[in-house]
């Protein structure tokens, strides 16, 4: 890669402005096409039969009656998706999650599927499939699942990461540990120690668009998949591997995506749709219902976390320790590991230790949800930090400033930080008018910090210059919230042209090289880096063509503000050539002009945020109301500030829902009781106030413009900030998320009863 990604401190003319997004009109007129908005000739309707049991052996499946129903064109079970994963355990789990092979592992686990000429017949056909289950004992609670008496979900799993190899199978798949120093020594030095246990319930990403795809497999082994996804290249790999297709012959087109937040990062029903299409010999559209989305896709981990933090009288933290238990659903994951890495990442600690346990439960396979695993760890740690500040008699912000990580601090998860934003966000919060605003009766104010790693990864971009001087930018990272606008700004900046001359699209898997998915807040970070590189490659060609047009050496041509300029007094009579001038002559100077770039975007700068919120609690009902909310976060450089604000506000709103309302509720029978938006209540417009934002810009040294990812960090502080606010309002430390009215009342009652 002939590209220098270092931050240069340039002055911007396009980046940092707020133009209208290129896909705006399509989206306000209903023309934008999402997963379920695409149709093919001869298309069938696919539907999935799901287990009503939390844990059951599938003894037999009789599909004969369904197959005989007029209008049914294919019925499949796991037999139609043979195991081609060749020892790849993670892919095997994705396969088994797509279609249960020997056991149903959660309420909602797919066991069979049909393709029929319409939805009505498909639904009838599902009722004709006879599944003989042997129901097994189940476990859905993370702490209960760790008990050695708990039903074993997978008897081939032995806990990894223990000093001695275990001889008995366990629901704990892995133990991980991070930290440095000696926490025993550190706690011995402490004057004050806070030690508490916390729980958080399972939540769903809650994207408004259910999973949807149209799959078409041809007899010659070629196939097309139209799908809402955060990563169509990843979906292509998954599906090709699971179906035994050649990746290059499977063309995956990402539709507009109606929200993902991590929940559309691996395949669910797409292999099923492809298998149905292969069997039926016709295209198949498969759209999940909302009930299926809740029961069988998404959710985040439920957690149980113990935290212990000690400090001296002067407010210096001497030791910090946490044990984190995260549910993974029925398949191994690394969710507690991520929680253990992020838990104390905001602080400069001499002695720190975190231990994570990954725990199997009979719930849907845990998927990433915006800064996955970090919000729960932050809830526990930032609650304890607040409590410790209170015991020390210190202001909660000052206590955090005193212990905040800085450039050069060794992070609790290993690396040494470069320039970071935790200190500046705390200082901004300290000086924010929100912190000084008066509170009324029954109101409390809380604040909390959050950290997220951010990610870069494999990225590929094509930039093509039309003969009319317009520029098309083809990127491979799915646009989840305005990245086509931000990437157009970056291309306009680098080329020195106007934003209106550009049009960015998301290319399909056959039109562009491999791209990692839009996750880890990487979309704008990594694709902007590749866009800058592609634009610089195009500029080299533009200079060369200008040199040809002038018949002078290319080394005498520079590119400034969208023009080729002949450098030197001897060229004084040559007037600058615009990109448009050069493009118009491209047919006679060497053909089309394009810039391509493929790179691994290393150096995603870590991200920090600090949030403030005011909550009012009704002591009689336990009902809560968010009165005021402020987000302060480091963006590195905000490419399109309006959409950066949008990321801050959206993450905060999701965190508010998580903190106050949202939770998966399972019955004793192991069935999900609230699989719909009526009973799983995400925040609505009347639940929230305006969400104020303050963007800080501490440049990321590893990006030419200083950009950091901004998408995820905003969901990390809210659980803790709100818990601190509620605790301050009612005078009782809240330790269980969500803080629904019954939980708040129970906490108040427990306090009264002493």
């Amino acid at each position: 890669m002939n590209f220098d990604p270092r931050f240069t401190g340039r002055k911007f003319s396009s980046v940092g402005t707020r133009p209208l997004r290129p896909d705006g009109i399509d989206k306000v007129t209903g023309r934008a096409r999402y997963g379920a908005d695409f149709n093919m000739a001869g298309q069938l309707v696919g539907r999935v039969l799901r287990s009503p049991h939390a844990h059951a052996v599938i003894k037999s499946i009789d599909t004969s009656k369904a197959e005989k129903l007029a209008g049914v064109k294919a019925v499949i079970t796991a037999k139609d998706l043979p195991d081609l994963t060749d020892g790849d355990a993670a892919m095997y789990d994705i396969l088994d999650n797509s279609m249960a092979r020997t056991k149903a592992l959660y309420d909602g686990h797919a066991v069979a599927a049909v393709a029929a000429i319409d939805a009505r017949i498909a639904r009838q056909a599902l009722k004709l499939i006879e599944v003989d289950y042997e129901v097994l004992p189940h476990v859905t609670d993370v702490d209960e699942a760790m008990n050695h008496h708990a039903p074993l979900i997978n008897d081939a799993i032995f806990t990894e990461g223990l000093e001695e190899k275990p001889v008995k199978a366990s629901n704990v798949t892995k133990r991980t540990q991070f930290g440095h120093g000696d926490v025993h020594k550190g706690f011995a030095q402490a004057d004050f120690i806070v030690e508490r246990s916390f729980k958080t319930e399972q939540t769903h990403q809650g994207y408004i668009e259910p999973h949807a795809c149209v799959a078409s497999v041809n007899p010659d082994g070629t196939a097309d998949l139209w799908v809402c996804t955060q990563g169509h290249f990843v979906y292509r790999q998954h599906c090709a591997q699971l179906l035994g297709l050649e990746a290059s012959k499977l063309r995956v087109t990402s539709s507009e995506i109606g929200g993902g937040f991590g929940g559309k990062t691996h395949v669910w029903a797409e292999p099923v749709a492809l298998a149905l299409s292969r069997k039926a010999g016709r295209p198949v559209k498969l759209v999940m219902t909302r009930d299926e989305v809740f029961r069988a896709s998404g959710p985040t981990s439920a957690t149980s976390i113990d935290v212990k933090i000690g400090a001296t009288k002067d407010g210096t933290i001497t030791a910090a320790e946490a044990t984190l238990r995260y549910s993974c659903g029925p398949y191994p994951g690394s969710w507690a590991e991520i929680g253990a890495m992020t838990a104390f990442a905001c602080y400069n600690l001499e002695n720190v230790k975190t231990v994570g346990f990954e725990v199997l439960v009979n719930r849907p396979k845990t998927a990433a949800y915006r800064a996955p695993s970090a919000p729960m760890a932050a809830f526990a740690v930032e609650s304890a930090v607040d409590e410790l500040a209170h015991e020390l008699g210190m202001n909660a912000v000052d206590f955090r400033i005193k212990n905040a990580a800085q450039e050069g601090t060794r992070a609790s998860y290993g690396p040494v930080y470069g320039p970071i934003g935790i200190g500046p966000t705390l200082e901004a919060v300290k000086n924010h008018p929100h912190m000084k605003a008066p509170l009324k009766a029954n109101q409390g104010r809380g604040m909390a910090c959050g950290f997220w790693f951010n990610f870069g990864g494999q990225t590929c971009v094509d930039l093509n210059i039309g003969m009319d001087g317009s520029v098309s930018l083809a990127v491979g990272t799915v646009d989840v919230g305005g990245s086509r606008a931000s990437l157009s700004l970056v291309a306009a900046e680098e080329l020195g042209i106007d934003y209106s001359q550009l049009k960015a699209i998301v290319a399909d898997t056959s039109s562009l090289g491999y791209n990692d998915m839009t996750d880890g807040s990487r979309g704008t970070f990594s694709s902007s880096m590749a866009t800058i590189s592609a634009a610089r490659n195009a500029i080299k060609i533009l200079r060369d063509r200008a040199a040809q047009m002038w018949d002078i050496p290319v080394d005498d041509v520079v590119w400034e503000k969208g023009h080729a300029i002949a450098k030197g007094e001897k060229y004084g009579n040559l007037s600058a050539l615009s990109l448009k001038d050069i493009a118009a002559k491209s047919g006679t100077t060497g053909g089309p002009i394009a810039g391509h770039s493929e790179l691994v975007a290393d150096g995603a700068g870590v991200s920090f945020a600090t949030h403030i919120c005011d909550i009012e609690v009704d002591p009689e009902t336990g009902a809560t109301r968010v009165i005021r909310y402020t987000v302060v976060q480091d963006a590195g450089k905000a490419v399109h500030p309006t959409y950066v604000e949008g990321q801050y506000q959206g993450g905060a709103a999701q965190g508010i829902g998580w903190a106050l309302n949202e939770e998966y509720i399972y019955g004793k029978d192991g069935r999900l009781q609230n699989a719909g938006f009526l009973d799983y209540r995400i925040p609505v417009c009347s639940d929230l106030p305006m969400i104020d934002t303050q963007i800080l810009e501490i440049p990321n040294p590893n990006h030419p413009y200083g950009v950091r990812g901004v998408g995820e960090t905003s969901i990390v502080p809210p659980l803790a900030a709100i818990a601190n606010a509620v605790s301050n309002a009612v005078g009782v430390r809240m330790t269980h998320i969500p803080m629904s009215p019954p939980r708040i009342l129970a906490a108040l009652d427990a306090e009264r009863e002493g």
Partner: protein
Amino acid sequence: MAGVAVSTTINGDAVEYLCQPDETLLEVLRDRLGLTGAKEGCGTGDCGACSVIVDGRLVCSCLVLGAEAEGRKVETIEGMAHGDQLHPLQQKFIEHAALQCGICTPGFLIAAKDLLEKNPSPTEEEIRFGLAGNLCRCTGYDKIVRAVQDAAAVMKGA
């Protein structure tokens, strides 16, 4: 199963279709008429993504039968702009970045249009309660409320 013959008006155009008695208006719009601007987010009337206006009344089209559209006037997102002239709400949603993924946007626009037709000068609280039947998971609603406030101001001035 015998189909039901329906004559209705959609976005000002006379439309006829056959549908099954248990088919929703949303299914008819999307699958029979190709009007995919209305989205199915839940199918149970909880998310508002399928909002349309029937005879001046804001409804979730997933809770209305296709057969019930007989003789009525249905307004969908596809009819909101006049030719190439966006409705002020559409324009303000783009200007304020009141959408990120955009899946809820058609429903919000229809609901906001209905709100402003009934209450041209809503307070922030009236906007928030007026749009409480529409779920958005991306924006936190801040920019949606501002877009509606701005559109209301523009429409009053017009």
